[in-house]
């Protein structure tokens, strides 16, 4: 009969999480960040395959250090229990530099303008290749393999659609509405195409990723569920959001290894609720500011208090950037921490406030420098994100390739120009 030592989801009273995490990291040979995430799990098998005496000894050691565990009989069949990761823990590192990327970015811009936008496809490949190539995992970088010519074709079509929409919207609002509906129908299709294109053109160690989501479920996830969300005045939004993330992750794979998202609805509800509270707070603060300014002076639209009139909308915009960044960080953490591909697990510890600060300061600096800070901003944000991401896997050598398919670039370019972001 074998026994296992199981973590029960909390640390001992009077123990600090950070101190316990430090010990756990050392004990299991993993990084502190990973240990912190592990301590947040409700239940985790720490050690298994032990005799009863060994298990009790181990259990005592864990208790001494503040990790609340209990000894259980090991189940006869492999259980659904999450396992403490084996020794291979790996970090994502970004080695790019702002000054280096600036050269690439500015030459991209110059050539794009000079070629009236044609070069933009090559510029995009160059940009993504820079970020992919400098993102290292176990010493090896990622690859972006897209063919610029395909991207160019997609962009030309996308620009055409955008022009039609802009014209229709400004001068014939009804026509604009019809175009908008058409685009709404187009959106899930474009989303699938784009996910597939980006996945299949991304590779690590010469093994490609893949996305095999189908259009039907895409329409359900990206059209039907958001509609339901709006219908219920936002109550079903977190569920809709979960559906979308699940659609993306569950159909993503690396070689033959598919990924799965295990997050529960309640996890998303928690995040949405926090965001809602922050949003309300923002509105209240804005309202107070407005009232203060109103009483200070009667503002008139023709001859106005110039600085305040301009400052307020920007202030409001920064508040919404803050709220959105916190939201993005939290959902990204949730998705990574509850996704796995076989024995490969992810650990994302992106601090919401930290990330929001990075985005806000990036925004302000980029505005002040009329856009020139942008390359440093991109590098900074990506590096920050990568430095809070790691994974554990038995072996990086163990993955196997699957058959690749060609995908047209159209979907990808369309969602790019419309500014939709749907990365994990």
């Amino acid at each position, binding site marked *: 009969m074998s026994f296992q030592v199981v973590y029960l989801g909390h640390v001992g009273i009077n123990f600090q999480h950070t101190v316990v995490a430090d010990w756990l990291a050392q004990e299991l040979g993993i990084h502190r960040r990973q240990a912190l995430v592990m301590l947040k799990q409700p239940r985790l098998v720490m050690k298994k395959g032990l005799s009863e005496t060994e298990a009790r000894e181990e259990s005592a050691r864990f208790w001494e250090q503040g990790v609340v565990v209990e000894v259980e009989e090991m189940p006869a069949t492999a259980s659904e229990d999450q396992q403490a990761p084996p020794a291979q823990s790996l970090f994502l590192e970004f080695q790019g530099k702002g000054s280096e990327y600036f050269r690439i970015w500015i*030459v991209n811009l110059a050539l794009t303008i000079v070629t009236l936008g044609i070069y933009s496809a090559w510029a995009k490949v160059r940009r993504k290749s820079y970020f992919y190539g400098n993102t290292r995992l176990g010493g090896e970088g990622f690859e972006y393999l897209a063919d610029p010519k395909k991207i160019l074709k997609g962009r030309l079509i996308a620009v055409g659609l955008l022009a039609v929409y802009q014209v229709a919207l400004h001068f014939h609002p009804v026509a604009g509405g019809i175009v908008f509906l058409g685009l709404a129908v187009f959106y899930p299709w474009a989303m699938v195409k784009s996910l597939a294109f980006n996945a299949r053109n991304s590779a690590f160690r010469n093994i490609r990723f893949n996305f095999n989501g189908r259009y039907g479920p895409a329409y359900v996830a990206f059209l039907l569920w958001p509609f339901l969300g709006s219908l219920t005045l936002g109550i079903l939004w977190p569920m809709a959001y979960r559906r979308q993330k699940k659609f993306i992750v569950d159909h993503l794979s690396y070689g033959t290894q598919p990924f799965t998202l295990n997050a529960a609805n309640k996890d998303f509800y928690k995040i949405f609720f926090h965001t809602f509270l922050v949003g309300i707070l923002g509105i209240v603060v804005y309202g107070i500011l407005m009232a203060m300014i109103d009483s200070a002076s009667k503002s008139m639209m023709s001859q106005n208090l110039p600085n305040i009139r301009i400052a307020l909308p920007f202030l409001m915009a920064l508040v919404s950037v803050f709220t959105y960044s916190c939201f993005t960080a939290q959902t990204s953490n949730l998705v990574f921490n509850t996704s796995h591909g076989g024995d490969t697990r992810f650990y994302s510890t992106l601090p919401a406030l930290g990330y929001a600060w990075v985005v806000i300061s990036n925004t302000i600096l980029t505005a002040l420098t009329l856009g020139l800070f942008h390359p440093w901003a991109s590098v900074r944000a990506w590096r920050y994100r990568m430095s809070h991401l790691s994974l554990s896997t038995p072996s990086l050598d163990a993955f196997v390739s699957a058959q690749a398919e060609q995908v047209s670039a159209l979907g990808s370019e369309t969602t790019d120009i419309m500014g939709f972001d749907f990365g994990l």
Partner: protein
Amino acid sequence: MSRVLGHWLDGQSSARVAAALVSRPEGGLRVERLEDGLALLTQDKFQAQVSPRLGSTPRHIRFPQGAQFVSEDNQGVDELLSALGRPRPWMALVQALEAHKGYVALSLAAVLLIIFVAVRYGMPLAAREVASRLSPEVMRQTEEQILAVLDKTVLSPTQLPPQVQARLQNHFRPALLGNPLYNLRVLFRKGGDLGPNALALPAGAVVFTDEMVNLAQHDDELLAVLAHEIGHVVHRHSLRMLVQNSLLALMALAVTGDVSGTSNVFLGAPVVLTELYYSREFERQADLHALRFLCARGIKTSRFADLLIRVSAEVDKKRGGGDQKWGSYFSSHPGTAERVLPFQAGASGCANAFN
């Protein structure tokens, strides 16, 4: 014989093998395993796709069967490739541009110059061309919507006595005639938050607020303002503004298409500033139109100045006295002091108006 160190990735599994890429004395190349020298690939003639050199990212040499050799030694790879007789791809030119500080500076200067020219000159030109080609029907519809929104939000029905309205409409009539392209007419509304104001709508409707009418001490003052507003209509200023805004937003989006880790919010700043700049230009044009109108009919040009100064003082009073000069850049109307000068110049003002 040149030799580059790196890893062999066969494309079947993610396992990597420490390897070296060597050029063969008899031509072609060989990839051999570092551990024991085993040949993983041999080619008589170089046949592979090489990723462009990009900063210090690893270089990928992709062979036809799907396997690849990846190396951190970019310089070594370049040397080996030229030893193998492979021609420099055009992308190498781009890499050269990025590598030299001089070219980078040149690119920066070129980008700034082009954007400046496009925003300062290209966009207004494009907007003017587009706006001038819009049909009367489109202008009429746009005007309807704008008026509906204004009536719903900031404007309310006029409280001017009917005799006053009738008298003014009569006084205005000569100015409203003689322009078949536009349906010139005057509407009265209570301004509320807008205060003393006059608005020109795209198809020819000019809205006067009660507050403006009540501030005037002579009907010619209002006539002068009407002429200014008609200037806006005739030059299609509001339509040009709409078109310019969309073009500006579109261009800003295209230029910074790859925003990540930043928010598109910052796009607002230069857009707003340029918006304000354009509208100041339009005010100058409308002022000139008013000046010419008054001079042509022998009406005292100081009428415009009088009302403008009075309105400005009224607004200042309500605002608690802001600094007009500093505000000038940020406000949509150029400073009042600047504006009234040509109107106070009497005969010489009129002489200059028609230059």
